């Protein structure tokens, strides 16, 4: 409940600080800006649940928008463009997971940092380093338009959140994800296919980056190799601020969503209050430190409680 309370408090304080904050137009702004972070953060959240990290999401998203723009040059089919972006994202994610698992890397940090560079490079190479304007109308509507008066991106966010909720809570796969994050050695002993669980988490994170690419390309009506800068920061921050644990196995999709809205609200408020963009980076960084520290503290306290409880029962 902590993160929700903080978010509500934030909203109340900000509505006093700025008369524009609670206007429908501004709320619409926050939602459409948050949508990309939210979708990608939901994928990031799965990876963090397994004690991992996906640093490649921003570059992955940029590459996907470029791939989408290129496909749009040869076909008018919105479906093909969407498919190209999502598959491109999923492919990079699959590479992340496969190299991490089968390459027996000590930590996913290294491979996802490498694919960050590779995806960015490929995106720059394919696009010639320039933005590529033009997206099918369907994608523009999803990313930046409204359907029945509701931002199109909201449908995407809600749809993915519901799908992930079912996958994480009702499917065996979801249970395995938590088991692998909770105790990887025990997961092996219990016969859980740990390698495939990990690969699937990274692949889905990549797919989410691809879906995020659809939203961002739609909103800006373009593909660009420069999209998604620092998106890894925003999404990791969203997951941790939202209340999931960096130590793995703890958290749910709501954490990623609440965290994404918090990041969106903080960014929006700093804009409304005319805080300059350089200072915003500092604020976000400080918020991440606070969130990670509270996560560590929470786990420490839990350990202490267990010792106390055990001592009482002796």
């Amino acid at each position, binding site marked *: 409940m902590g993160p929700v309370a903080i978010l509500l408090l934030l909203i109340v304080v900000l509505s006093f600080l700025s008369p524009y904050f609670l206007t429908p137009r501004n709320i619409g702004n926050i939602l459409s800006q948050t949508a990309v972070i939210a979708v990608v953060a939901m994928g990031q959240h799965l990876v963090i649940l397994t004690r991992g990290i996906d640093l490649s999401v921003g570059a992955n998203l940029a590459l996907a928008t470029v791939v989408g723009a290129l496909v749009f040059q040869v076909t008018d089919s919105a479906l093909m463009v969407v498919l190209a972006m999502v598959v491109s994202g999923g492919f990079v994610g699959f590479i992340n997971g496969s190299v991490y698992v089968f390459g027996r890397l000590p930590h996913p940090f290294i491979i996802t940092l490498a694919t960050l560079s590779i995806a960015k490079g490929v995106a720059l190479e394919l696009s010639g380093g320039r933005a590529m304007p033009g997206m099918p109308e369907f994608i523009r509507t999803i990313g930046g338009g409204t359907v029945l008066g509701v931002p199109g991106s909201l449908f995407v966010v809600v749809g993915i959140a519901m799908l992930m909720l079912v996958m994480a809570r009702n499917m065996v796969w979801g249970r395995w994800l938590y088991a692998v994050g909770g105790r990887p050695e025990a997961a092996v002993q*219990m016969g859980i296919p740990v390698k495939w669980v990990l690969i699937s988490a990274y692949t889905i994170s990549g797919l989410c980056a691809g879906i995020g690419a659809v939203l961002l390309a739609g909103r800006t009506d373009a593909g660009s190799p420069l999209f998604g800068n620092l998106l890894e920061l925003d999404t990791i921050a969203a997951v941790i601020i939202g209340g999931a644990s960096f130590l793995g196995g703890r958290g749910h999709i709501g954490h990623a969503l609440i965290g994404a809205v918090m990041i969106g609200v903080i960014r929006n408020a700093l804009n409304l209050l005319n805080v300059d963009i350089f200072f915003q980076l500092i604020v976000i960084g400080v918020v991440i430190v606070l969130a990670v520290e509270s996560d560590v503290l929470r786990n420490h306290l839990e350990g202490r409680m267990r010792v106390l409880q055990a001592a009482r029962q002796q």
Partner: protein
Amino acid sequence: MSGSMELKSSSAPVLTVQHATKRFGPVLALDDVDIQACAGEVLALLGDNGAGKSTMIKCISGVHQLDEGEICLNGVPTAIRSPGNAREAGIETVYQDLALFDNLTPSQNFYAGRELSYPAWLPLGLRFMKSREMERVTAEVLNRLRVILPKPDATVALMSGGQRQAVAVARATVFARKLVILDEPTAALGLREARKVLDLIAQLRDEGNAVILITHNMEHVTELASRAIVLRQGRKVGELLPTKENQQELVSMIVGA
């Protein structure tokens, strides 16, 4: 589970290991060892550190494979190539580190890796869980074993050492159809908690399982075990019925004095 009761009632050897030999490079960890475990009895596997008892149980539970020798279950030679294989064959192991997931509840721990789920035609990972049924069976088993948890739906992270041990032992009982192996189940426990686990082991035995117990505590051996096998430097150096009187003899066998 219900169909396996008739297997448990016989006292024929459930597990027979013959001529077990295992090398790790130049080290001969097991040298032509024979052991037998029967339904309804507790077999104590004793030995100093490095005697080969852990190697033996790891070969039975599928973590390692024997270089030479044969493992028979109910008289049938059985190849055990992985922990999954062993569990399918009805062998459950309570590892020394318990292999519990701190972030999951007892029922989620019980069924980790073998969740009750549907529809059967999908691969296990893609199926939907039958959570309520898993919770029901878990509550039943904990109740039958008289394991009392303050909050049965809470994650095991906040449970005491004894409660965690009880959950791990209870998990083994749900799925054990032939053999339960316990590796130093009381090593990290206080007196009262250890008592509780010993009672659980006795109950497992009385329900007709063959139990292999590894421990350094001679009191527990004389109390529970109907046979003790002593290993030293990879060889079987003795097999006897442990009593209070021959406890000293057992200890000398273990240390080789």
